[in-house]
């Protein structure tokens, strides 16, 4: 199959960017989206042109590096699928595809389709952890956790931190990401200890990094490659309300 691509090209963070047209020829339906771009890039390199820069690492949908908005939807048209796991069989011969980077003030473009997502790391650094003693490994069943809680925590922990929620949000909010981390830890006994402090400092960090705030459009859940639910945002809000009733300065 042959496709026409309009790809965002930007040589550096402070350079102006623009969409450029490319033809992708002889693409097989079994290729992944990134393999299709590899083919295009080989052509560009052969003709002495600069290849399209894009992020990727595992190519099996678990690392969260791949990050492209395809025809206006982060990670493209296939539900619960990262770009690297999106296959060309979901497109038709002759299709026109617009490929753009995540757009958010907190994610500056580094080059072409690559954005800097370290703002998400700084939200984690603010409070997305639990404090434990190092030393001997505790017995695996020393702390009992109900199955339902373990399942909920695992659902939230599925977040791979790709940032598609931010890219899709009309407000550029990182609420789904932050909520997934807050909910994951607050559901487990080990995370309860610091739950009040965590929700406060993580939402504060989110604001400081220049992310917007959630106004409940739920665009994030719709594009999330892991299908993280907005019920975790409700959970974050509950945790925040609970924390607000605690003595001021308790964290």
């Amino acid at each position, binding site marked *: 199959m042959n496709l026409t691509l*309009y790809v*965002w090209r930007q040589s550096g963070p402070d350079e102006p960017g623009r*969409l450029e047209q490319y033809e992708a020829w002889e693409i097989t339906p079994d290729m992944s989206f990134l393999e299709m771009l590899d083919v295009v890039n080989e052509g560009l390199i052969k003709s002495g042109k600069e290849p399209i820069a894009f992020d990727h690492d595992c190519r099996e949908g678990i690392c969260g590096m791949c990050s492209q*908005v395809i*025809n*206006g*939807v982060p990670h493209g048209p296939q539900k619960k699928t990262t770009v690297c796991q999106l296959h060309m069989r979901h497109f038709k011969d002759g299709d026109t595809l*617009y490929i*753009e980077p995540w*757009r*958010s*003030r*907190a994610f500056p473009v580094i080059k072409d389709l690559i954005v800097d997502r370290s703002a998400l790391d700084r939200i984690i650094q603010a409070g997305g952890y639990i404090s434990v003693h190092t030393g001997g490994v505790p017995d695996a069943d020393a702390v009992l956790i109900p199955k339902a809680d373990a399942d909920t925590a695992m659902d939230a922990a599925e977040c791979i931190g790709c940032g598609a929620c931010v890219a*899709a949000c*009309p*407000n*550029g*909010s990182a609420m789904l990401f932050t909520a997934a981390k807050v909910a994951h830890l607050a559901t487990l006994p080990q995370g309860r200890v610091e739950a009040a402090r965590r929700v*406060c*400092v993580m*939402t*504060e960090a*989110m*604001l400081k990094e*220049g*992310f*917007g*705030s*959630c*106004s*409940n*459009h*739920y*665009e994030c*859940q*719709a*594009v999330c490659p892991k299908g993280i*639910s*907005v*019920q975790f*945002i*409700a*959970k*974050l*809000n*509950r*945790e*925040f*309300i609970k924390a*607000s009733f605690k003595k001021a300065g308790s964290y």
Partner: protein
Amino acid sequence: MRFLESPVGRKLVMTVSGLSMIGFVIIHLLGNTSLYYGADSINAYAKALHGLPPLLWGFRLVMLIMVSLHVFYGISLTLENRGAKTGKYAVRENVRSTFAGRSMIWTGLFIGAFIIYHLLHFTFQVIDPGTAASGHADALGRPDVFMMVVLNFRRLAVSSLYVCAMAALGLHLLHSLQSAFQTMGLSSDRTLPVIVRAGALAALLISLGYAAFPLSVLAGIIR
């Protein structure tokens, strides 16, 4: 971080002020239904309300504070959220968000302007003094609110404006009710779809309920 600096804290203020306004809107709607029972009914209702000035003004003060908070945080959060985006996507598809949700700021501003007009029109009665209830007493010597409402709603331009404002209110509520539950942390995967539908139904009932007053006057049902 202080409550009012937090993104969640400010949205909780939006929620509480918004819910109290919804409460007012429902009471106001129920009170207005006295229009259907004729002049005597609504004039007596208006007179009773004005018979307790401390209560009336206390209530008005609370509403003024709620509206001000809602407008202030609504505008400042919207501006902040706009600032969090850089550039627009050349192609953009909305997968789940709704027109009602994305146009909250515009329906909100329109409703705000309408409230000012409505207060000047029917509460302070300065827009059209010729029909003002304060200047016309009914048979029992009460300000003739019924006459004022009917005379005004018989004009197509006035009625259309009221109906448009109620359409905007309906759109605004369509998003706000489910949004309020989510912000207060009262929704989950199981309950959110129900809350969204119940909220839509309530939004429809409230806006249709209000729009029915000018339409009933135009249709000659209230006269």
